[in-house]
């Protein structure tokens, strides 16, 4: 299935992009993040990040579906 991944803050800097589309076979967010962590040397663990699927905060065990957009969110530091 085709998944659009959005990157923000330090993750965007490490990935050197703000978004990309990937073909994935595993529907788990954990597996997707493990792959990205290895590719881009993200230092945060999956459990340290919040997840948004289709622009909504989502549970870590949400199953991905074809066409979803996903963002892994570092701890917020606005204000």
């Amino acid at each position: 299935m085709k998944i659009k991944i959005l990157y923000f803050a330090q993750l965007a800097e490490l990935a050197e992009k703000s978004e990309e589309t990937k073909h994935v076979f595993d529907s788990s967010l954990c597996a997707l993040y493990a792959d990205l962590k290895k590719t881009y040397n993200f230092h945060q663990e999956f459990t340290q990040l919040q997840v948004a699927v289709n622009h909504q905060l989502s549970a870590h065990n949400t199953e991905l579906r074809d066409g979803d957009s996903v963002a892994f969110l570092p701890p917020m530091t606005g204000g």
Partner: protein
Amino acid sequence: MLFRITEKIIEPEKLRQTMLSSRAGAYCSYEGWVRDHNEGKDVNSLHYSAYEELAQTIGCKILDEAESKFQVESAIVHRVGDLSVADIAVWVGVTAHHRGDTFLACRYIIDNIKHRLPVWKKEVYSNGDECWIESNHCGCSDPKNLQF
């Protein structure tokens, strides 16, 4: 209710004008400023980035919670992009019939912005180093405010 993410300079006086109401007896605002130091380092500037689609949803939710909890009218404007020392990074405005609710709601909103709004801050230091801040837990937030 107003929620806005902007790259433009925040002008509090103009925003205050938008809050004026003959029904309100009190107005309280909060401005978060860029300061020139953090944890012993000289800060030259800050860079803020946001996940705008999600920030709209969460920002409006925070305002909705504050308005239900304290019976106020409220607004948030958060800046993104490159900010200099003394720039306003975030503005919160609240009106209500009475002053007590405006103080409480203003505090509720800024505490929740810091913990829940998908905005991230990078510090740029005087020696040229840069660092994404990874925790907003400075101990200033009232824990009661983080449980609606």
